[in-house]
C-alpha cells in the first residue's frame, strides 16, 4: 500500500500538472473555436445584412419596374389606339357617302382602339336614334341598348352637355344602369356633334375588368366622335351640293333644249329668209336686166332720136340699174354663203399678190382721194388655202371703205403678218372712225353707220356683212377697232393649216 501511496505521491503532481496543461490546451483550443464561431457569426450577419440590403434594392427595382411597366403598357395602349384612330379617320374621311362611312366603321379595326363593343347611333329626321354601326353586340344586347336610349332621351340629350360620359366619372347609380343596358363593365359615350347640333352618339365598352378604361380612352373616343361628326357633315354637305348640281344640271338641260329649239327656229327662219332673198333677187334680176337692156337700146338711138334730157334720164336709169344689180348680187352672195350653196374654190394662194392686185384696181380712187397707201407685208407670209376671188373681194371692200372714209392726205395701211398658226391682215386708215355703238352692229346686214359721208354716198349696207361671211367661210376671224376722228383698223385672220378650214 505504501508503495502505491508512494507512487501516487510521486505521480500525482505530474498528473495534476498534466491535467492543468491539458485543460490549458483545451481551453486555448475552445477559445480559438469560439473565436472562429464568433467570426463566422459575424460573417453570416454581414452576409445576411448584405442579402437584406440586396433584397431592399430588389424591392426598389421591382417598384420602379412596376411603375415603368404600367407607364409602358398605357403608352402602348395609347399608341395602338392612336394608330387605330388614325386608320379609322383616314377611312371615313376618304368617302363622301354617309352610308359608306358607317360601313367602314363597322369592322374589327375599331376594336384596336381598345374596346370590344361599339355602337354608332345617329338621329333620324324625327329625332329618333337609329343604330348605324353595332359591333360586338348580340341581337338581344343591341335591342336592350337601343331601347334604353330611346326611353331615356333626357340622358341622351345630357351627353351633349357633358361632352363625355364614362364609367370613371359617372355616379354609381348611372353606371349601374348603363352597365346593365349595354352589358359591359366599362364604357365611354361621346356625342357626335356638328357645331352645336348633336348628330348622334358613339358608345364603346368592355366586358372584362382587365380592360378598365382610363382618361386617355375618353380622349380617344371623344376624338373619334369628332372625326365621325366631321365625316358625316362633309358627306351631308356633299350630298346637298350634289343634289343642287343635279337640279342645276336638269335646269341646264332644259334650257339647252329650249335654246336648241329656238336655234332651230332661228335657223329655219334664216333659211326661209335666205331662200326668200334668193328668190326675190332672182325675180328682181330678170326684169332689171330687161330694164337695163331697154334703156341701153333707147340710149343707142336705134328706136328714134332721143332728147338730151331723156338721154340724161336713161343714163341715170342705167347707173341705178347697175347699183341695183350690184346690190342684188351681194344679197345673193350672202344668202348663198349662209345656205352653203356658194362653193368656195379653195386653192393655195399668196395674200401679198392679192393685196398688190387690189392696190392696182383701186389706184385711180386712191389718187382721186389723194390718200397715201402703204402695204406692210412681212417676208415670211406663206401661201394660204383660200378662194382668191372671195379674199380679193374682202380686200376690195375693206380698202374701198378706207378710201371712202379717209379724208384727203390721209393714210391707208395694209399690214400682213404671220401670227402663230394664222396669217393676220389689218386694213387701217386715218379716217373719221366709228363710234362705239355702231361698232357692235357694223357687220350686220343693211347696217350703215350714220355719218356725213354715208348720208352723201349711197350704199347697200351689205359689204361688211358679206366680208364677214367670206372670212367665216374660210374659218377665219374678223373684228374691228376704231376711235371717232382717229381712224379704224379692220383685222381678219386666215388659218395657215388647211386642216383648220372647215369643209375643206
Amino acid at each position, binding site marked *: 500500500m505504501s508503495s502505491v501511496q508512494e507512487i501516487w505521491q510521486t505521480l500525482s503532481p505530474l498528473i495534476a500538472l498534466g491535467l492543468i496543461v491539458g485543460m490549458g490546451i483545451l481551453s486555448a483550443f475552445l477559445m480559438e473555436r469560439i473565436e472562429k464561431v464568433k467570426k463566422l457569426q459575424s460573417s453570416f450577419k454581414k452576409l445576411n445584412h448584405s442579402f437584406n440590403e440586396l433584397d431592399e434594392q430588389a424591392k426598389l427595382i421591382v417598384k420602379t419596374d412596376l411603375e415603368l*411597366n404600367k407607364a409602358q403598357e398605357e403608352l402602348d395602349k395609347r399608341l395602338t389606339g392612336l394608330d387605330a384612330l388614325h386608320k379609322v379617320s383616314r377611312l371615313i374621311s376618304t368617302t363622301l357617302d354617309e352610308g359608306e362611312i358607317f360601313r367602314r366603321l363597322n369592322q374589327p379595326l375599331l*376594336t384596336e382602339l381598345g374596346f370590344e363593343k361599339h355602337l354608332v347611333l345617329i338621329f333620324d329626321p324625327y329625332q329618333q336614334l337609329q343604330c348605324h354601326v353595332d359591333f360586338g353586340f348580340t341581337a338581344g344586347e343591341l335591342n336592350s341598348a337601343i331601347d334604353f336610349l330611346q326611353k331615356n332621351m333626357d340622358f341622351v340629350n345630357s351627353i351633349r352637355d357633358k361632352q363625355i360620359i364614362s364609367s370613371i366619372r359617372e355616379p354609381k347609380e348611372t353606371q349601374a344602369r348603363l352597365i346593365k343596358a349595354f352589358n359591359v363593365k366599362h364604357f365611354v359615350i361621346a356625342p357626335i356633334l356638328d357645331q352645336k347640333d348633336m348628330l348622334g352618339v358613339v358608345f364603346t365598352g368592355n366586358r372584362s*375588368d382587365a380592360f378598365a378604361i382610363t382618361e386617355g380612352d375618353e380622349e380617344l373616343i371623344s376624338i373619334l366622335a369628332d372625326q365621325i361628326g366631321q365625316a358625316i357633315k362633309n358627306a351631308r354637305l356633299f350630298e346637298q351640293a350634289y343634289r343642287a348640281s343635279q337640279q342645276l344640271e336638269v335646269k341646264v338641260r332644259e334650257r339647252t333644249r329650249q335654246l336648241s329649239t329656238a336655234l332651230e327656229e332661228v335657223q329655219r327662219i334664216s333659211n326661209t329668209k335666205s331662200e326668200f332673198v334668193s328668190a326675190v333677187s332672182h325675180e328682181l334680176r330678170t326684169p332689171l336686166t330687161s330694164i337695163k337692156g331697154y334703156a341701153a337700146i333707147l340710149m343707142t338711138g336705134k328706136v328714134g332720136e332721143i332728147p338730151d334730157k331723156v338721154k340724161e334720164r336713161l343714163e341715170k336709169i342705167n347707173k341705178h340699174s347697175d347699183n341695183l344689180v350690184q346690190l342684188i348680187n351681194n344679197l345673193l352672195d350672202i344668202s348663198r354663203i349662209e345656205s352653203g350653196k356658194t362653193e368656195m374654190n379653195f386653192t393655195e394662194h399668196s395674200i401679198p399678190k392679192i393685196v398688190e392686185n387690189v392696190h392696182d384696181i383701186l389706184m385711180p380712187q386712191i389718187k382721186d382721194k389723194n390718200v397715201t397707201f402703204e402695204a406692210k407685208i412681212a417676208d415670211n407670209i406663206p401661201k394660204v388655202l383660200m378662194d382668191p376671188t372671195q379674199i380679193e373681194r374682202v380686200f376690195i371692200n375693206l380698202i374701198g371703205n378706207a378710201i371712202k372714209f379717209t379724208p384727203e392726205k390721209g393714210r391707208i395701211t395694209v399690214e400682213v403678218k404671220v401670227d402663230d398658226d394664222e396669217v393676220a391682215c389689218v386694213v387701217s386708215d386715218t379716217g373719221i372712225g366709228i363710234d362705239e355703238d355702231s361698232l357692235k352692229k357694223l357687220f350686220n346686214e343693211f347696217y350703215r353707220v350714220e355719218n356725213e359721208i354715208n348720208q352723201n354716198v349711197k350704199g347697200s349696207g351689205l359689204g361688211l356683212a358679206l366680208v364677214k361671211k367670206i372670212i367665216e367661210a374660210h374659218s377665219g376671224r374678223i373684228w374691228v377697232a376704231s376711235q371717232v376722228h382717229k381712224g379704224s383698223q379692220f383685222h381678219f385672220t386666215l388659218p395657215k393649216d388647211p386642216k383648220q378650214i372647215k369643209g375643206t
Partner: protein
Amino acid sequence: MATYTGIGFSQNQNGLKAAQEAADAAKRELHQERIDIAFVFLTAHYDPQEVLPVIAEILDHTKIVGSSTYGLILSETMEKRGIGVMAITSDDVIYETSSIEHLQLQDKRWAGKALAKSSVTDFGQKHRKLFLFFVEGMLEGISGLIDGIKDQFGTTFPLIGAGSSDDLRFESSYQIHKEKVLSHGAVGVLLGGRMQFGISCQHGWTPLGKPRVIDQIDGHIIKTIGGKKAIQLYEEYFGEEAQTLKAGSFGQINIRYPLGSYVPDINAYLLRNVVNVLDDGSVVCQDKVNEKSEVHLMIGNKETCLQATQKAAQDVKDQLNGEKPDFVLIFESLARYKIMGRAALQELRIIKDILGNVPLFGMFSYGEIGTLNTTVNRPNSQLQNGSIIILGVK
C-alpha cells in the same frame, strides 16, 4: 412524301360568315383532296356551337381539335379577335384524337389516363411520337391530369399542351373535339408515324431578390414562405398593391412578377402565377409547387421574353438538325403577350428568322404544358406559367 398545311383566318363580325371564310381559306390554301386534321382556335367573340358545324361541313367532317383563346398567333400577325383554322394533310404523320369532359367532377389522374388511352385505341401499333392536348385553363389540379397521361405514355414521353383561355374574364373557356364543344374538358392528339419534331419551352423571367424557402404547401396553395404567410413575400415588395393578387382584381403583379420555384434537376425556375390570395395569407397558384424548394420573386421584360423566344426557336431548329419544319404550333402565355405589348409581333419575325418562312399557328393560353430546358434533361412535362411552347413538325 410531304406534309401540307392551309391556314385560314377571319374577323367577320358574323360568326357563320367568319367560320365559313376561315375554313374556306384554310381548305383553299391546303389545296388537297383529303384533310387529316384541323386545329381550330376561336376568340370569345364567337359562339362555338354556331360556328363549329360550318367549319366541320367545309372541312369534310375531318378530325377537329381546338380551343377557345384570348387571341390567335398567325404567320404574319397576332389577333385578339377572330376564328383561325389550320388544316393539315400528311403522307407521313398520323393523328389520332380523343377527349374527355367534366373534369371538375372527376379524378384528374384517372381522367388523364383515360384521355391518353382513348387516343391510343385507334392508333394501333404505329410509332407514337408526341401527345398534344388542350385543357380547361381554369381547371384546378392540371398536374393530376398530366400525371394520368404520363401513366399511359411514360414520364419521358413528349407531352405538350395549352390551357384554354377566354377574354380575360376568366368565366368560360372551352375545348373542341370533332364537332363537339366541350365544357371543363380536355382534347388530345396523339401524333406518330414518320415524323420529326422539335419542342421547346422557355419563359424569359429571372430571379430577383434573396431566395426564400417554401415551408408549407397544400397542393397548389402555398401556406408559408420563409416562415411567414406566403402573401407577405408580395407585401414586402409591393405593399398595398399586393392585394391586387386577389381573384378578379386584374392587377399587373400576378402576370408580371410570378413566383419562381427553383428545380435543380433542370437548373431552371418553374413559374407559378398567383391566381388568388386566401384570408389566412396563403397564395393560390394555378398548379402545385414543391415543398421546401427555393423560391424567388421573378422579373421579366420585353427583351428577356424575346430572348426566350429566340432560344426556344433555336432549340427547335437544333432538334430538327437545322431542317425547316413543315409547320409550327405555338402556345404562349397571355402574361408574355401582355408584357411584350406592341413588341409581341417581333416574336414572329424572330421565329421565322430562325426556323424559316414556315406556317405559324398558335394561341394565347392560361397555362402551358411542357418541359423547361429540354436540351439538358429528359422531358418531364409540367404545367408552366408565363411560357412559350414552340412545336416544329417535319
